[in-house]
């Protein structure tokens, strides 16, 4: 039982990380109907900058984190301003491909700049820190992950509901032309969405790096696991991203924890594909996800 609770705790924490990364996807998708394939590499650049700042330049973690966030926000804003703004009205195929282009560039720059070796991740916690409750070890990093996610979601809720810019973003997502007619600068909304998404995703990446202790150039693939999370929750639903993330995190960690007890025929690495299997199942039954808006298409 303690083992199960331990897995549930770890799964919830990992799910929160997927939720944060997924939030990045859905904020951009909601604002501009673009799936940002380069999200994972924004996260990669961010975690490498934070790791370098702490390990090589000996900055305190709390100074390194904003530096990493700043770098990815700037990359996100530049890409939005210089490239994506020219792509408004182009087919989704083209826009997806162009974010793949950015993905390749960022990943290669990380390999060129830092090498393809594994490097230790920056962490403000000692590995063993935390406390035990009823035989379950609650690690500091996991507790912080849960706390940060809850606070961030509350802040986002407040932002979208009760602030000027949050309202502008929701209006743009609902009807771009009506928003324009109401005097909302839609271009600023796009920029805001990209900046916000880059920062939230990077935060998720840094938390994941703390959890996994080390990073390498494949670290950005974590964002691909957030795909099932947002599809599960519904692409355009912000709360769906959180629920989807937690479900994916739980199933993935529970599968990993019990994999050795399954029959030998399942082999190894099943937990890496369970998120995708769940996603395909959801897409077959409910293609708009659990919380997504059901688009009516009539011809």
């Amino acid at each position, binding site marked *: 039982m303690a083992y199960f609770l331990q897995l549930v705790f770890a799964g919830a924490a990992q799910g929160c990380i997927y939720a944060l990364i997924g939030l990045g996807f859905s904020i951009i998708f909601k604002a501009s109907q673009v799936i940002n394939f380069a999200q994972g590499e924004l996260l990669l650049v961010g975690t490498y900058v934070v790791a370098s700042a702490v390990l090589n330049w000996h900055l305190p973690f709390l100074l390194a984190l904003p530096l990493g966030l700043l770098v990815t926000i700037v990359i996100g804003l530049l890409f939005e301003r210089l490239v994506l703004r020219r792509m408004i009205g182009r087919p989704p195929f083209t826009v997806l491909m162009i974010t*793949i282009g950015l993905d390749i560039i960022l990943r290669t720059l990380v390999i060129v700049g830092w090498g393809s070796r594994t490097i230790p991740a920056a962490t403000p916690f000692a590995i063993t820190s935390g406390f035990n409750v009823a035989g379950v070890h609650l690690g500091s990093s996991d507790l912080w992950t849960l706390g940060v996610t809850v606070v961030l979601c509350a802040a986002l809720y407040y932002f979208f509901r009760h602030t000027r810019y949050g309202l502008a973003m929701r209006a743009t997502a609902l009807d771009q032309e009506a928003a324009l007619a109401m005097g909302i600068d839609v271009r600023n909304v796009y920029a805001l969405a990209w900046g916000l998404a880059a920062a939230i995703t990077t935060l998720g990446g840094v938390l994941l790096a703390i959890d996994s202790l080390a990073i390498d150039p494949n670290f950005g693939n974590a964002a691909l696991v957030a795909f099932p999370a947002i599809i599960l929750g519904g692409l355009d639903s912000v709360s769906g991203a959180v629920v989807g993330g937690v479900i994916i995190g739980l199933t993935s960690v529970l599968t990993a924890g019990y994999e050795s007890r399954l029959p030998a025929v399942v082999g190894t690495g099943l937990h890496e594909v369970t998120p995708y299997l769940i*996603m*395909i199942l959801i897409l077959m039954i409910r293609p708009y996800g659990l919380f997504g808006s059901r688009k009516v298409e009539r011809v």
Partner: protein
Amino acid sequence: MIATKEPGRSRLRQELPREAEPPHLLGSLARWLWLGVGVLALLLFFSLASDDWFTIVNYCLIAAIATLALNLLSGYTGQISLGLAFFMGLGGYTAALLGGNPPAGPLDPWGLGLPVFIWLPAAGLVAALVGALIGPSALRLRGFYLGIVTLALVFIGNYLFRNLNFITGGPQGRNFPVPAFGGFSLDQQNSILGVALTSGQQYFLLILVVLLLSALFVYNLSRSRVGRAMRAVRDHEVGAAIMGVNLFEVKMGAFVLSSFLAGVAGALYVSYARYVIPDYWSLSLSIQFVAAIIIGGIADVWGSILGAAFVFALPQVIDYFSLLPPSTGGGGLSSGDLNALLYGLLIIVFLLFEPGGVIGLVRRLRPGGPRPQRLGTGASAGAATVKEGGESIEVVDLQQHLPGPGEERGSSGTGAS
């Protein structure tokens, strides 16, 4: 039948501006001239090139077959796919299972020892069959969703390939069969009609034949009624459906044919590489082919070949001339990194400024050449796309591909088949 014919259509057709020349397969003098230059260049390369160059070119030609496969699905039909690596892997392991040696060791886990003219087509057929099984559920999804599902396919495939040890050899990989025709095994020097040929030259001939067949097939398909239906689906799904195109049939056809070509390319790759690990069939392999079709040219046979050459041969050429220090894993610019940076950048530049790719640029700069192909606006937004810019271009494009009077008889035959 892909499209239905109504009696009123012929009148409509005559009112449309006819800009495209009537199609000729190698019609004009200039084309014969170019063909001659091409054959001469091939012959010169074949007799003069070193083994290293054959290795570079052979891999590149195999990649060109897979690029054609992706172009058929994504370029001509507009269906985003990141799953090409999965179908290539299927082809590769079918080749291994049918053509491999009988169990000999950990690197030769299983094999029926069948000849190449069975396992090479079978590799394509198995990939096509799996494509036909997955297609009906995957193709219900559009745009991004299809892209993400095919991405999932790569990861699920990777899990299967790593665990089906008796076929794939597990994580440490396995050996693959060498094509052999009668007594001639392609990994040895053989003399054919009195001419001694190296292993690289023999592979070159085999791969070139398969590439030529694939290219001719895709080229002819694209100019047929089916090809026009594919482009119509890409440019505007709703519009195509209204014109009587069966969306499901066209998408399924493209998906299955693309899987077939990918399977054949995968089988050729493994039989040339001789040894492959399951991790080779990764997402980044799929993405390289996406880069190849965008840089070379969307919906273009020559574009596919140029794109494959750029993405898959350039790093080897840079290494051959030792232009950059070898990769050490400790950072610094290696040939592969330089190439990745270049094609990442070129994807963005081409999509922004010349969506037709290199071949679009060439065709546009050539005086009197046909207009460049353009990407469609896609139909996922439904009625909303009507408001957006660029729509009129797509309609013109559709009209261009309506058959001229001379072409009608031949094309309706293709449509009925």
